[in-house]
């Protein structure tokens, strides 16, 4: 090797210079040449145990594993020769000796490495005549993770995830050779806040997720890019969804959140709170239509009426008591665009000064160095940037509201931490005045609301979140709005129009 210089190697006729210390598989990945692998993962340590990534290197008599072989200057690598294909076929034949091949009922089918590689290199006719070993089928490793021992290829990705990323040793591979099996250490259960990641990591269907298990076949799902709205980190996610045709049994549209690689924000991972937050999108508690209180009853109305009545109420209070008697609470669950629209409408046009951006971060909340932040809202920074914060604090507004000093309180956004944790108390908005809620999901405060304007969740609209580090992340709507709900910005624009304000600026 030529000292510190970048070694240049040739893979399948393409040459590339890589950082000293890189391996052949890393160089191939950079060239876009895919080398099959089970155990290798760019974010985990290299073990070279699956032997799937064998490549032929000129001047070396035997095949080498691409994940452990360092790239050396002048190296010439071939990844598709007959010798390599033979080796891959033999490895797959070994792996399938006791594999159940129950792909039709396996949740991983369609995104399974073993299945994909076998379609490409497989032997197709089994030469195995002996009795197959049966192992544990439905083996519960934790509240969310179920294991199928027969499907495991012992790649140890899950073991290394707990050792190296989430930091607690929980899983291990026990016994030796053909008898090896994966299990938790005695007394351990998988209940980390990051457990769900091992299901994505597992190259086969050995680890499955209770939340997604049996819900849908992966080939029926469409994928959309989004930003997780459940904490200030703003992890990048892929949303697997399937919008329904109306006669289907299952009303669920969003089936799964998976982390999407972004080295700047979340790397390859996401936390379980965010992952299982996907349930909130199609929750039965979502508000489907505008609701208005008439006496003791709450009745659904059409949007036109809703907007007109809301505008009328706001106008009334402003004319009679002045804008000092209006309070505005914007939860940091809304996008920067909505925050901007709220500021223009309420602060700039209507002169409302009692503005708050929700409630302070709960200091006792869980936080760690991996991803999870104490602040369970996605866009506190965004609201600051939009110039909404720095006004009253929420406690003051709620105090004034309780004492009847405020005649009208307009609340935009959802109390997301409460959506995830139903036990968490929500601030009580009980008072005499007019409470108007613009939000997506029903909550205990609805009881006191005069009007409820259903708005979409962040997955259903375009927008931007700014995470705690100040990184602005733009995203596009993935699924269509739930029921009749409208985008938050759209509602505010309609309100502005009904109030007779310039719609260009509001």
């Amino acid at each position, binding site marked *: 090797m030529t000292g510190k210089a970048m070694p240049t190697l040739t893979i399948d006729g393409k040459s590339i210079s890589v950082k000293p210390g890189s391996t052949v598989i890393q160089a191939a990945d950079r060239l876009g040449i895919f080398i099959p692998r089970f155990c290798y993962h760019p974010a985990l340590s290299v073990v070279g145990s699956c032997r799937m990534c064998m490549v032929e290197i000129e001047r070396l008599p035997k095949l080498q594993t691409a994940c452990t072989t360092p790239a050396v200057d002048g190296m010439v690598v071939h990844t598709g020769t007959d010798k390599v294909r033979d080796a891959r076929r033999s490895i797959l034949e070994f792996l399938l000796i006791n594999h159940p091949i129950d792909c039709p009922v396996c949740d991983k089918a369609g995104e399974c490495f073993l299945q994909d590689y076998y379609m490409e290199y497989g032997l197709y006719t089994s030469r195995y005549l002996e009795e197959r070993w049966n192992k544990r089928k439905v083996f519960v490793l934790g509240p969310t993770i179920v294991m199928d021992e027969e499907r495991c290829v012992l790649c140890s990705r899950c073991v290394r995830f707990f050792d190296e990323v989430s930091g607690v040793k929980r899983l291990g591979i026990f016994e030796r050779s053909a008898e090896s099996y994966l299990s938790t250490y005695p007394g351990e259960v998988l209940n980390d806040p990051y457990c769900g990641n091992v299901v994505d990591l597992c190259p086969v269907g050995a680890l499955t997720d209770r939340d997604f298990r049996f*819900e849908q076949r992966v080939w029926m799902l469409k994928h959309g890019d989004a930003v997780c709205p459940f904490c200030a980190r703003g992890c990048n996610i892929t949303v697997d969804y399937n919008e329904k045709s109306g006669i289907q049994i299952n009303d669920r549209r969003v089936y799964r959140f998976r982390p999407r690689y972004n080295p700047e924000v979340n790397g390859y991972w996401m936390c379980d709170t965010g992952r299982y937050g996907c349930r909130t999108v199609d929750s039965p508690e979502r508000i489907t239509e505008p609701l208005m209180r008439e006496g003791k009853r709450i009745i659904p109305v059409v949007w036109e009426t809703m907007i007109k009545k809301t505008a009328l109420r706001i106008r009334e209070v402003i004319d009679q008591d002045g804008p000092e008697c209006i309070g505005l609470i914007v939860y940091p669950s809304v996008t920067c665009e909505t925050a901007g629209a709220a500021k223009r409408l309420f602060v700039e046009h209507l002169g409302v000064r009692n503005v708050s951006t929700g409630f302070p971060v709960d200091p006792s909340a869980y936080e760690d160095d991996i991803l999870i932040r104490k602040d369970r809202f996605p866009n506190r920074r965004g609201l600051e940037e939009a110039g909404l914060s720095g006004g009253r604090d929420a406690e003051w507004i709620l105090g004034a509201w309780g004492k009847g000093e405020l005649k009208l309180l307009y609340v935009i956004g959802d109390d997301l931490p409460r959506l995830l944790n139903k036990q968490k108390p929500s601030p009580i908005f009980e008072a005499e005045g007019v409470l108007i809620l613009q939000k997506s999901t029903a909550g205990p405060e609805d009881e006191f609301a005069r009007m409820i304007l259903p708005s979409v969740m962040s997955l259903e609209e375009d927008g931007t979140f700014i995470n705690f580090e100040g990184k602005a992340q733009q995203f596009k709507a993935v699924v269509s709005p739930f029921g009749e709900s409208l985008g938050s910005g759209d509602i505010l624009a309609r309100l502005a129009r009904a109030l007779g304000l310039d719609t260009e600026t509001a």
Partner: protein
Amino acid sequence: METVKKEKRSLGFLEQLYVGEVVKGLAITGRHFFRNLFIHTAHLFGLMKSRKGAVTVQYPEERRVIPAGYRARHRLVRREDGSPRCVACMLCPTICPAQCIHVRAGESPDPAIEKYPVEFNIVLDRCVMCGLCVEACPVDAIRMDTGIVEMSAYDREEFVNRRDLLLGMNPQTPPLPKTRHG
């Protein structure tokens, strides 16, 4: 392939008169009508059994034999203990071109079975009777061998064939429905 254009034969004088040709046509129709009327009446009295009348099947009193492989209404096959054989793999909804099969899977109490259909609906008025679902099933759990060809209902809801209805149906078994020739 070459296309050959055939010259149209021009009509003769008598043919152009029209009336004669109409009478000829009516004579043919009438001959068959009276012949069949006679033969069917004779059959009614047990006579002339060896002579065949027209091909008409006297449905619904008579039914034709449904040939093997005919795609009639679906059924779900049961295991020996009566539970569905279907493993809720959702391959039939995947292949179904009419998207009329809906399966919801549930955890089976038997660890060897993995999952089973908690709900299984075939929306029959959408179905195009293509039989692809039968081909796709890896465990031969769905079949179209009930021999039931009558599918009518007063209500769309009645076309939704639910799991237990599908499980309750049986294959067409001998003795086959009575037919005129067999």
